[in-house]
């Protein structure tokens, strides 16, 4: 998304109104940064074993891949987006964002050790709250959880969820189970209890395939295929009755695109009309349920030709479901100018900030 240099235009030429950036990232610069936020017993254990951190960070975002960071946002050999000042200079200031949702995909999902997973998640959350949220009032954070262990995850949500600038719980899209399964209910219960959004984000366990039917050979293939996982989780959550069980649950789809939504949702609606007796807790159509409970960040937008994109966005329905995001520091080639042009005029202020303000209670 046009950001660091706003390419050939200015922020005001693109959009003069308020901006909320619904997806920016902080990266852990190195394990050592977390040691001050972790129990000494784990620091000692990590050092003794020479453990180098969760492997799925590098799998979701290969360090040298062009998608992992825009070249302007790389600084020598440093981990992109690993310092607050870089986030400020690169996106928050040029966009004059009044608020941003800060996500740290930290790969907790690839830690099999049940206690280390909890300790690591807590350390990341403490680090994010102290080193980032505590130093810039525009930032509102997402917390990470050991999602393999929903009871421990709920405990972590309760531990930090009441922090006034914690707004979201991250679930990585690659998981060993579909998120509508009741196994995950303690997580949703805790999210609702703490008035937090559940954000499904890129990345996740490397132990299951990145597509619904198997492993891709290439990173390019994986990046393209992984979008299907968002469809699988949303289908699961809607039909399994997650939103019937938790009527106030809000879910944000991040880095998953959104133009696939109407066509996919029509299909799910059609199946529901004929098979809904199996899932009687779902009393609205799946698409209506999605409109009530799900929002999408727009990076990557993966836009098509303008006239087709405009029509597809119209198919999303009467209300704006989209939230502006830069997805800093990931390199997205979408053009926010085109997106602003194709969304209905009445939706633009919501797209750029209004929807995120309401959704996250900012």
């Amino acid at each position: 998304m046009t950001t660091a240099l706003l390419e050939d235009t200015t922020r005001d030429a693109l959009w003069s109104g308020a901006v909320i950036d619904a997806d920016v990232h902080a990266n852990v610069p190195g394990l050592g940064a977390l040691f001050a936020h972790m129990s000494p017993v784990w620091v000692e254990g990590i050092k003794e074993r020479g453990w180098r951190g969760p492997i799925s960070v590098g799998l979701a975002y290969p360090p040298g891949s062009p998608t992992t960071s825009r070249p302007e946002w790389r600084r020598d050999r440093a981990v992109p987006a690993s310092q607050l000042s870089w986030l400020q200079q690169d996106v928050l200031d040029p966009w004059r964002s009044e608020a941003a949702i800060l996500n740290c995909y930290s790969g907790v999902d690839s830690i099999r050790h049940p206690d280390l997973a909890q300790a690591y998640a807590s350390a990341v959350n403490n680090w994010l709250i102290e080193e980032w949220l505590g130093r810039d009032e525009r930032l509102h954070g997402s917390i990470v959880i050991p999602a393999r262990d929903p009871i421990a995850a709920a405990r972590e949500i309760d531990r930090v969820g009441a922090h006034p600038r914690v707004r979201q719980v991250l679930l990585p899209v690659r998981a060993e189970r579909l998120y509508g399964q009741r196994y995950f209910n303690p997580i949703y219960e805790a999210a609702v209890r703490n008035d937090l959004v559940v954000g499904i984000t890129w990345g996740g366990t490397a132990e299951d395939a990145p597509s619904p039917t198997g492993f891709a050979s290439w990173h390019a293939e994986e990046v393209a295929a992984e979008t299907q996982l968002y469809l699988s989780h949303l289908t699961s959550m809607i039909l399994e009755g997650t939103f019937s069980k938790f009527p106030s649950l809000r879910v944000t789809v991040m880095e998953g695109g959104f133009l696939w939504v109407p066509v996919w949702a029509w299909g799910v609606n059609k199946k529901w009309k004929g098979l809904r007796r199996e899932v009687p807790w779902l009393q609205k159509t799946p698409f209506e349920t999605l409109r009530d409970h799900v929002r999408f960040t727009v990076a990557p937008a993966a836009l098509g030709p303008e006239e087709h994109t405009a029509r597809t966005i119209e198919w999303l329905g009467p209300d704006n479901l989209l939230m502006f995001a830069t997805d800093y520091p990931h390199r997205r080639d979408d053009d926010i100018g085109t997106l602003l042009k194709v969304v209905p005029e009445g939706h633009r202020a919501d797209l750029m900030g209004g929807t995120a303000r309401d959704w996250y209670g900012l």
Partner: protein
Amino acid sequence: MSAAQTTPEQRQKVAKYVVAKVDELPPGGRLIVDVDGRSIGIFNVKGSYYGILNRCPHLGGPLCVGDVVPDVTSEGQGHMELDESTMWLTCPWHNWEFDITNGQSYWNPKRLKARPFSVEIEGGRAVLQEEEEGVTGRVKGPYQAEKIDVEVEEDYLVVSLRPLRPGQQVRPAGPADRPTPLKEDR
């Protein structure tokens, strides 16, 4: 008199058709009859009788050959129970559900409706009298060939083709709804 034999003037007047003897449609049973060119399903649901046009409003499937199933209700994730007070007629093509009492679809009851017809029980004497007055006709089958088929001591199912007014419920024909003259016929 039969539908095929009615003149246009008579057809305007004929609004009810004898479709079967009551005994021929036991509880749980159905008949699909041709009435004045329309295929109509007649159902006996626990002693109440309902008529539905045999054409699904979705894509025109033969709605009335589909299953008749009780509602499944839920108070939330993982909870379900049968509610036999609502019975759905399900289209064999896409399994869309229509309330057998009024044709309303499950998912879009206001805008998507199968067409209902009211079915009443009339005694043979009333049927014969109305037939002479040209109000009631007979459908093809045993009720068409000879007048003698309608016998005064029998009860008959009579389907009305008059369109229901918007919002009007079909009155199910059942033992409690039986018009009083029937008793006299017996």
